[in-house]
């Protein structure tokens, strides 16, 4: 943005805030330096663009239409423009400082620091002294910004999605209810229009761009929906117990996780492990090589043998 334009926009904001009654476009043209005094069409175009730019940065411009007047009037209502008075105690300012540093990537990091700057400009003394506690949330998935916007604007989206192990990318149309980060991964929860049911999608498996469809405000989030429970539900299964023989003096991590641990024969100990997915258990035990052996149940045992044979080739 050129310096002249910034000057014009700043003067326009001051002019619209200062006026008590709505001003017509012509009055604004007279009052704000930088508008074309001769060419009406050029002025109209420029004024339209300026109003849009102010709205884009969140400045509310009121438009008044009187039945007896052809030309609308414009002004900015102070109460809807200004940050309300906000005072923070010392401990409150400290946590705002901590919260503002959480986001790591462009969109939200800028939003958070913009918010902090406004609060400080409003007189809040936020504490940014280095804290021994540091919290970072990453939104590196390219799908995050468009999904945040879709959730904010209550718009449906469509995107390509690869199932966990699926080979093909299918197009999904989803009314997003929310996004949840769990164990460092982002999920979108919503109503899958093609399947007519609620579904959870992992952002890391979205392929290509997320495109908003339909009008803003058209998505209705069901009352009382528990986003976290929906994401968590995916990972639950029936829990069973596996018996695993572990070589003495090895598999320290497995021993820590075991429900039961007892000495066995010939330099081996026996551990009992709780699991729900035999494939997950098989992956873990196979990774321990010749130091751990699944005795049972049979499906878990077979799954380990299959993995080890697979690793032979």
């Amino acid at each position, binding site marked *: 943005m050129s310096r002249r334009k910034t000057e014009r926009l700043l003067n326009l904001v001051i002019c619209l805030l200062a006026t008590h009654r709505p001003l017509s476009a012509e009055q604004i043209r007279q009052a704000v330096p930088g508008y074309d005094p001769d060419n009406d069409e050029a002025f109209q175009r420029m004024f339209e663009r300026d109003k849009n730019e102010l709205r884009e940065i969140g400045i509310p411009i009121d438009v008044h239409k009187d039945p007896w007047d052809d030309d609308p009037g414009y002004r900015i209502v102070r109460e809807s*423009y*200004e940050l309300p008075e906000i005072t923070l105690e010392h401990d409150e300012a400290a946590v705002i400082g901590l919260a503002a540093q959480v986001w790591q990537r462009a969109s939200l990091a800028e939003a958070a620091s913009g918010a*902090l700057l406004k609060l400080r400009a409003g007189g809040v003394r936020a504490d940014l002294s280095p804290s021994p506690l540091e919290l970072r949330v990453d939104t590196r998935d390219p799908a995050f910004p468009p999904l945040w916007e879709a*959730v904010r604007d209550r718009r449906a989206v469509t995107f390509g999605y690869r199932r966990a192990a699926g080979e093909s990318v299918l197009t999904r149309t989803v009314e997003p*209810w929310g996004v949840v980060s769990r164990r460092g991964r982002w999920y979108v929860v919503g109503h899958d229009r093609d399947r007519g049911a609620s579904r959870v999608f992992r952002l890391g498996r979205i392929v290509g761009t997320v495109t908003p469809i339909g009008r803003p405000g058209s998505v209705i989030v069901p009352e009382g929906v528990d986003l976290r429970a929906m994401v968590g539900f995916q990972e639950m299964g029936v829990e069973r117990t596996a018996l695993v023989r572990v070589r003495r003096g090895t598999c320290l991590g497995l021993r820590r996780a075991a429900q039961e641990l007892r000495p066995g024969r010939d330099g081996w100990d026996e551990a009992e492990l709780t699991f729900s997915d035999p494939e997950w258990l098989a992956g873990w035990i196979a990774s321990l090589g010749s130091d751990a052996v699944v005795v049972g149940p049979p499906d878990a045992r077979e799954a380990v043998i299959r993995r080890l044979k697979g690793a*032979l080739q």
Partner: protein
Amino acid sequence: MSSDRLPRLLALVPYLMSHPGAEVPEVAELFGLSEKQLIDDLQLVWMCGLPGHTPGDLIDVSWDGGEIIIDNADTIARPLKLGVDEASALLVALRMLGELPEFKDMDVLGRVIAKLESAAGEGAATVSAQVQVEIGAAPGAHAAITDATRRRRRLSLRYYVPGRDEITPREVDPIRVVLVEGRHYLEGWCYRAEAMRMFRVDRIVEVEILDVPADPPAEAEPMDVTEGVFRPSESDELVELELTAMGRWVAEYYPCEEVTELGEGRLRVTLRVRDQSWLVRLALRLGENGTVIAPPSLTEQVADAARQALANYEHMA
């Protein structure tokens, strides 16, 4: 100049109004500007004001001796209200903080959230309830580590290293406690490694706060975790893997130098590996869903390890 200049000016003027006599360097830093850019902003503001634009209408700014005094800017003396994204970004983060043990019994978050919500309006409150960051339960060692970090005391740890499947004793001067990618880490100067290290808190088997003040050497600088905690080094060995659709998760979990789609969901990836035994474990875990392509010596090691493990099952059968 970028298009954020106008929003910046609309925050700068109120800041200067509420902090009369603020110094040029400190304000420049706060707004992320060079001193020259800040002066340029001040000069621009000085050209603006109420319609009429007589000297009495214009904003008055001076920065003689580096102290900024602003006057006649009452119209824009308050900052613009928070946008939905701005307020939501803070609110989501504040709600996340509420899950940390440190804040469990404190009402400070509730107070801040209420104040922000009332300042921001309804939109932000709704959005921020729809974006949630879940923090897993803090591991047992977390409280002692946070305490030692705040009080700057040396820690004695027993730490589990899964790549080598061993527990090692370490003395560590804590620098900070970091939550990144959904996990808690202790970052500190490790006397065993003679270097800065990140310790996953859930892998700390035992922790003891020593009666010794933490005294890390001057070169103990916290690392930048923006690109993740695990940052491969140039000296680590390059390993090439082929993954089936079922093995694609590897590319999601570990930073890869190169990822090539091979069709039907299959991938070829290149990653840097510090510890060969870690890669052997990964290959065993993957089974038929991953194949080590290079280096060939590693392919051999994986096959050997698989043969030895399978022998156990033959004995038992």
